[in-house]
């Protein structure tokens, strides 16, 4: 089974628009939306959710006000600056210290150091994940709760479930839509994958962030392909990206122009290739053909 992960470093370069096209073009695959904190693929694929599950990413500390002796040990030991002092207890308000649920990373140090056993750890619901059916095949997607933690863990769940579905249905391809950046969720979506397809925008920022992403792919020894997007925005930068890729033995699978029809497709809840044939759609098809060939060439 092959796993193709679409990433970009910089955000907004067109990952999801491209993945939506690949969803329409590729046969026999499972789709996984691993951009769990700003997932958009479902907006195009209109999934019918078959299965949903709560994601508990971590724990959360709570201080029981009635037992709290206001000694402040928890605040001394908390490394996340998550314990806030609300002022001394009064006859009306017993509360003294409290945990800021957004800053708390659920480590449990406060529970350990509290001499009054006033702090407890409880599971924090921090999202949901779904298995769905779409017009282009199965989709596994998720939604991290607002200000959620542990997005990497949720990414791993989504990926593993997508692979399990592919296996069960004897499909030999998983296409992953990843998050921007090079941090925790990106590492979780890339590690162990067959290949990274990086969507690089023809801007200096796009090039800069592509280079960082390439560093990450090299670090994890995952082969990388590049698709240049919005290539006509700056032909000079597009050429520089091409040269940079050549120097680093990274294959460029195509150059897609800046095309407003990508937005038009979004508005219609479709992928660009479903809008009909045109020059850009033909380029996107070629991107997929080249990617597939290179992907299949790999053991």
């Amino acid at each position, binding site marked *: 089974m092959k796993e193709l992960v679409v990433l*970009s*470093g*910089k*955000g*907004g*370069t067109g990952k*999801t628009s491209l993945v939506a096209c690949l969803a329409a073009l590729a046969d026999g695959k499972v789709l996984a939306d691993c951009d769990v*904190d*700003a997932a*958009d693929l479902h*907006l195009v694929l209109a999934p019918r959710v078959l299965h949903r599950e709560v994601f508990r990413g*971590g724990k959360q500390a709570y201080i029981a006000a009635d037992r709290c002796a206001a000694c402040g040990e928890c605040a001394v*030991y908390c*490394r996340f600056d998550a314990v806030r002092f609300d002022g001394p207890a009064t006859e009306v308000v017993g509360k003294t210290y409290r945990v800021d649920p*957004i*800053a708390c*990373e*659920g*480590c*449990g*140090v406060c529970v*350990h*150091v509290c001499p009054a056993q006033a702090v407890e*750890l409880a599971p924090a619901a921090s999202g949901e994940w779904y298995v769905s059916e779409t017009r282009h095949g199965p989709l596994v997607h998720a939604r*991290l709760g*607002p*200000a*959620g*933690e542990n*997005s*990497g863990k949720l990414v791993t769940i989504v990926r593993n479930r997508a692979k399990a579905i592919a296996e069960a249905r004897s499909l030999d391809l998983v296409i992953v839509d990843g998050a*921007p*950046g*090079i*941090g*925790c*969720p*990106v*590492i979780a979506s890339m590690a162990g994958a067959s290949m990274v397809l990086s969507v690089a925008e*023809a*801007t*200096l*920022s*796009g090039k*800069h*962030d592509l280079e*960082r992403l390439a*560093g*990450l792919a090299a*670090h*994890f020894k995952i082969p990388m392909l590049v698709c240049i997007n*919005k290539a006509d*925005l*700056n032909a000079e*930068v597009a050429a520089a990206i091409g040269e940079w890729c050549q120097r680093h033995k990274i294959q460029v699978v195509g150059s897609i122009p*800046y095309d407003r029809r990508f*937005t038009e497709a*979004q*508005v219609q*809840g479709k992928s660009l290739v479903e809008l009909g044939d045109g020059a850009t759609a033909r380029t996107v098809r070629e991107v997929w053909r080249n990617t597939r060939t290179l992907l299949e060439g790999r053991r």
Partner: protein
Amino acid sequence: MRIAIASGKGGTGKTIVATNLAVALAQDDHPVTFLDCDVEAPNGHIFLKPEITHCETVSVPVPEVNETLCTRCGRCGEFCQYSAIVCLGDAVLTFPDLCHSCGGCSLVCPDGAIREVPRVVGEVEWGPAGAVRFVQGRLRIGQARVPPLIRAVKKHLPQTGIAILDAPPGTSCPVVETIRDTDLVLLVAEPTPFGLHDLRLAVETVRQTRLPHAVVINRAGPSGGDVRRYCDRAGIPILLEIPEDRRIAETYSRGELAIRAVPAYAGWMRALFENVRHEALV
């Protein structure tokens, strides 16, 4: 005043707004500090072209086990919520990538066998960019833990004057770390279905922090109606609409400031700041 520039979706124009706002305000003699908190993909330097005069590595403490003192009691592994330290029979394994540096394992170890050693996650760099004080964080490639590096960048927040914080995209912990303790969160949104969807997610996140927030619509055109309607219904003020203009996109692609290519842009940034000031006071 601390202004965080954020967005749910990537590529909506956070960095364009943040860098141009910083330079426009500096031109008006405001003391401005620009802090690039998008440490995974920091791009502010491309536009502000700072002269980096200082660089500091940022480390987080991770456990190191002294095998001689360790009695394999297993308390560290039981305590760790992140499976970053595991006691397996005769061996204690540590996984620094999973560690949140809470210090719990060394606290609970009854034998004093765990000490914390620094592990580098990235760098904080700073220096002048014209009249703007520039600070950025750069995550080391292969490192996963972003919030500690953002905290290190934010140590450079000035006591007075204007601070502009360029946030990473998304809605999870790096965003929350960036916007924490700011006076106003400016959400840059683009009027597309993806843009609107991710704006809603970003608003949910910002609401959890209870910080004042407002929207800038970037690349606004006839299709901006949905975002406007949403903001109207949700009671979120729109402080500026920047029209769709290929010149701005091309200027951006070259790593140049929009205020240099589109004369009206500086005026928009000043108006934005006046609106921000008004909003933050309310």
